[in-house]
């Protein structure tokens, strides 16, 4: 007798995903937020604006008229400062997280301080970092690296240690070593939290870079120009820089979201999609 034949053929084949039905599938997901956006922008444009908060079309015009300066700002603030700091901070956070997950005493010793570190006003460190790394982008990137290090560390450690006991017992029964356990079990289990860390840090990195530019340094970044124009009351430009910074942040976050979906497609949060 072929084992399980009856059950194997009786159950319906599993179809991944749902059939494409454009209005039903994308309608509420795309149309609803779009409508809200249009409503809010209209209200802002025609009813709710002041001298300090110019209407959206004025902001759009300011972005168009200053696109060269703004593009330079994006290059300096995002490309030179935020991204490099992000890679350094998240990279080191991940690596140190791996070490902490490996050594229990280190984890117990470090995690409470890593959690507490979120209350440190990182900005207080900016002058120190300028003293160490100079006025150019490295000191700004260092602020970003310090800001992103701890969230990444915590997410990595928790992720790497959140596998269940039976999954480990299974590998133990195969006499699997530490490296095998790490690659086959811990790393895949950690991915949802690792991406959680990467996403949080993507937002933090832009905030960090903009704020770091409030201190002495490059005069063409978004943060510097924002502060400069705010002190001279050029509100159109202040909002132009703010909106562009938001857009860069959203773009950065979205790229991570796409990568995350392809890596952690199996996780509960994505299965239904």
């Amino acid at each position: 007798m072929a084992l399980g034949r009856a059950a194997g053929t009786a159950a319906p084949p599993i179809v991944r995903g749902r059939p494409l039905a454009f209005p039903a599938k994308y309608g509420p997901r795309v149309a609803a937020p779009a409508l809200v956006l249009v409503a809010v922008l209209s209200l802002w444009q025609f009813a709710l604006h002041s001298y300090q908060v110019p209407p959206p079309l004025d902001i759009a015009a300011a972005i168009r008229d200053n696109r060269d300066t703004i593009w330079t700002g994006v290059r300096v603030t995002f490309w030179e400062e935020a991204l490099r700091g992000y890679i350094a901070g998240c990279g080191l956070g991940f690596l140190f997280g791996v070490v902490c997950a490996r050594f229990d005493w280190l984890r117990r010793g470090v995690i409470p301080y890593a959690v507490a570190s979120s209350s440190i006003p990182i900005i207080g460190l900016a002058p120190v970092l300028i003293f160490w790394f100079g006025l150019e982008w490295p000191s700004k990137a260092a602020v970003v690296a310090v800001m992103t290090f701890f969230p990444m560390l915590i997410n990595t450690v928790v992720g790497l240690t959140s596998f269940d006991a039976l999954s480990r017992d299974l590998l133990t029964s195969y006499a699997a070593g530490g490296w095998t356990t790490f690659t086959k079990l811990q790393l895949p289990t950690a991915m949802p939290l690792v991406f959680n860390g990467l996403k949080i840090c993507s937002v933090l990195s832009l905030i960090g870079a903009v704020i770091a530019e409030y201190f002495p340094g490059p005069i063409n970044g978004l943060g510097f120009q924002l502060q400069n124009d705010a002190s001279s009351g050029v509100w159109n430009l202040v909002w132009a820089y703010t909106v562009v910074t938001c857009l860069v942040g959203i773009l950065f976050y979205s790229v991570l979201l796409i990568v995350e979906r392809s890596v952690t497609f199996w996780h509960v949060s994505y299965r239904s999609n």
Partner: protein
Amino acid sequence: MSVAQPPTAQSVAETVAISAEHVSMTFQAQGRQTVALADVNLDVVPGEFISLLGPSGCGKSTLLRLIGDLLQPTSGTLRVKGKTPERARRDREYGIVFQAPVLYDWRNVTRNVQLPLEIFKVPAAERERRTKDLLALMGLRDFAQSYPWQLSGGMQQRVAIARALSFQPSILLMDEPFGALDEMTRERLNMELLNLWHQTGTTIIFVTHSIPEAVFLSTRVVVMTPRPGKIERIIPIDLPRPRDASTRETPGYFEYITQVRACLREEHVL
């Protein structure tokens, strides 16, 4: 599984698959000692189907974990094919099936079944061949590319059994593998397991708290009682084989069930 264990190997080590001598296990938690197992003695012949039966807290899972070297006894000696449990584990003698399927969600069915083979560095071509055979054997052929979370509980447990069999271990340790399944699925998987056992000749240690399940499957039922966990009686089940659905309707089957129940009642477990 294409190859059955050859019954010709007759070395001393192989006349007894598993032996436990005066095995005790004491857990220490918050300064309190709990005796999980007290003085357990058991010999298992190769190719036997042994059920460890008893209520919660009787130490049946603990005994299974001791055999599988997932725990180490406080005192006493365990031998598996003449070796220490640790040696046997390192020699990959054990296929383990837990109550939960413990499948890795990021691997599809095929890759879950191949997990031990990857770890044992079995060449890819050989991995593919064995997986194909096993999935066919377990009625999972149409689900080779599915992910665990797309399968029913019974299907998932089948994948877990296929994974345990993939490297042809000589001993199958099963810890209430069908405990979380509905009655119908459980009876069907019981049948499939018996067929597998006939084909492979694997020694099976099977933990359960279902009396009918234990009687139906086993060559011997080890009845265990709690506080402290110990073996109360070992009841050989001499029902004819191969057993099938009609076995569950024979007088002999009911007599054994009555016998096991009586044993548990004597100990005030029932």
